């Protein structure tokens, strides 16, 4: 029982950065914008968190810096994408590489130093509980942030008026525009808010989950996993977060396996999430291909299963929107 609780606590904390990044990107993509730069911006934010934390001696300033870096990267995506009409995928990919290299270059003096770490908070009341206390009682504040944001974003996206507007600008920007919703303005706002969460994910890595900076930091690849999880989660905050915890569980399992098979090289465990990523994407996307549809038509039993796993993207995702050009 104790072992299970500790394992769950490990999943909740290692999953926190992935959850933050996944939630941020879900918000951005719900608004119809793709911020593909995650893998780079998370690293740059992680580096900024360590650098500012070391220079100021205050990890909270470091966390603030990570969020700011996320916002600035997202601002570049917003300016070049929706404002200047460049391909969002192209801009995001360039930023992925640029931010990664910038992180390694600027972070060079801070590499392999004992970094600042956020404090561990123990929740009064909950930490004394027998099982839940072990799972949720003592964590870094960023972990609590990730836990609070999951229901909060679900409520915001699906139960509030602004959430309805958010879904509208991602699905049918022309219709939203005609209803008087400021499509461009909101898209930029959600890109920046999503970017802030992505940046905080970087800070959560370097200030809590994998403290410190180095080349490699250990967060490499996490951005791509988060992008895939947004698709796996069907652009639903709760489903996406569950996916993030699934990957965190695999990571924790990997660490345990590594202890049992010390002969295997560590980098092998770092790449192991990626075959899983391809498989999960296959599961949620395959249903819409012609040959699977044919099969589902022939075997009704299959149809229900196929439809349940489908993930449908916001209809206007990644498309340029210019109100004056719409017919």
């Amino acid at each position, binding site marked *: 029982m104790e072992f299970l609780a500790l394992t769950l606590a490990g999943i909740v904390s290692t999953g926190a950065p992935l959850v933050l990044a996944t939630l941020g990107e879900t918000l951005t993509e719900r608004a119809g914008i793709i911020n*593909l730069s995650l893998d780079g911006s998370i690293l740059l934010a992680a580096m900024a968190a360590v650098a500012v934390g070391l220079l100021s001696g205050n990890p909270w300033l470091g966390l603030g810096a990570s969020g700011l870096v996320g916002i600035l990267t997202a601002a*570049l995506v917003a*300016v*070049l994408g929706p*404002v*200047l*009409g*460049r391909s969002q*995928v*192209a*801009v995001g*990919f*360039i*930023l992925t*590489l*640029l931010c*990664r*290299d*910038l992180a*390694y*270059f*600027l*972070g*060079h*003096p801070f590499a392999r130093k004992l970094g600042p770490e956020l404090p561990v908070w123990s929740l009064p009341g909950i930490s004394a509980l027998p099982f839940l206390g072990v799972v949720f009682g003592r964590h870094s504040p960023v972990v609590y942030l990730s836990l609070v944001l999951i229901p909060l974003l679900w409520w915001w996206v699906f139960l509030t008026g602004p959430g309805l507007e958010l879904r509208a600008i991602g699905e049918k920007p022309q219709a939203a525009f005609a209803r008087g919703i400021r499509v461009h303005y909101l898209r930029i706002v959600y890109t920046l808010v999503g970017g802030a969460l992505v940046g905080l994910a970087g800070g959560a890595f370097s200030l809590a989950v994998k403290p410190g900076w180095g*080349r490699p930091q250990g967060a490499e*690849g996490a951005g*791509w996993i988060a*992008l*895939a999880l947004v*698709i796996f989660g069907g652009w639903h905050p709760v489903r996406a977060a569950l996916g993030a915890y699934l990957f965190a569980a695999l990571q924790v399992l990997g660490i345990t396996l590594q202890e049992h098979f010390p002969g*295997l*090289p560590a*980098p*092998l465990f770092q*790449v*192991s999430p*990626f*075959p899983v*990523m*391809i498989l999960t*994407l*296959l599961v949620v*996307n*395959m*249903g*819409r*291909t012609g*040959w699977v549809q044919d099969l589902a038509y022939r075997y009704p039993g299959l149809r229900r299963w196929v439809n349940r796993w489908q993930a449908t993207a916001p209809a206007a995702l990644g498309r340029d929107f210019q109100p004056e050009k719409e017919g």
Partner: protein
Amino acid sequence: MVSWTRPLARIVTVLLLSFLVTTAVLVLVDAPPLRTLGILLRGGFGSPAKIGQTFAVWVPLLLASSALLLTFAAGLWNIGIEGQIILGAVFATGFLRPFPEGGGVFLVAGALAAGMVGGALWAVTAGALKTWGNVHEIFGGLGLNFVGLGLTLWLIFGPWRRPGVASMSGTEPLHPSLWLREMAGLSLSPVSLIAGVLAFGAMVLLLRRSRWGLTLRAVGQNPEAALLFGLRPNRRILEAMAVCGALAGLAGALQVVGVYHRLLPAISSSYGYTALLVTMLAAFRPQLIPPICLFFALLNVGSIQLPLQLKLDSSLSGVIQGVLVLAVFLVQGLEERFLFPGRGR
């Protein structure tokens, strides 16, 4: 009227913007900007040996960028090209492993062919994930890049490890008779150089002058229409991926037989990702690809000097490359949306 002023103004703006950003980055780490850039450029072009090294990097970049012309024409984001280079290197090494005593030119040719097969296999896997599984090629390709990296690490530390010392320094070096001959005094093999130039020419001809290239572009521009015209877009996508992967695999195989003479964990040196930047910077105009590849190769080779002379990280070359492409995007966007709107693309 004055048709050359605008392109010139564009180039000057881009270079100035990139220079300012790079300077700002250098000032942030307390590095002397002009001296650093001087070291960077001299490191890549300062002596015949360095020019040789730069051209040795130019070849895989040119191979990969030419290959990407095809997949971009077909409307594909072949991010998986990095893994296709890796698999080319793995297949070439695997082909030569049974011959520790060495052999002749046929073995080397066989290794290059094996590399092409490996790259093509990896590319077709990403293509099949897209056409049969509806998985976007960015995610399929990226996942396969990491799988390729994992495969390389497993081979280097597992079945292909050097007797006694399994380490990041790679597998046992190939027998010298299997190395590509280098030009006198230069670490550059003429075979690689010829392969790169030929591949570039072939890709341009294929795209511009062949019926297949035309259908490929039709598929890229309007897959639905291409389907209705009976151009079989899925089939064309797999073909484009296969050819692109084969060239990327050739680049990887050349890294093994021509440059490192063994399999390393970092055998692909991110050339695939850099080639994607090259193709975007060239805005898919083939004539710009060789010079941009040369400039990027120069930056890559020159950046090796940074840790040695200034204790800076070598990733500065990647920063400059990325900033250049973003600056081009910014200038293009400003022109289209604000300075000269209404002209369309």
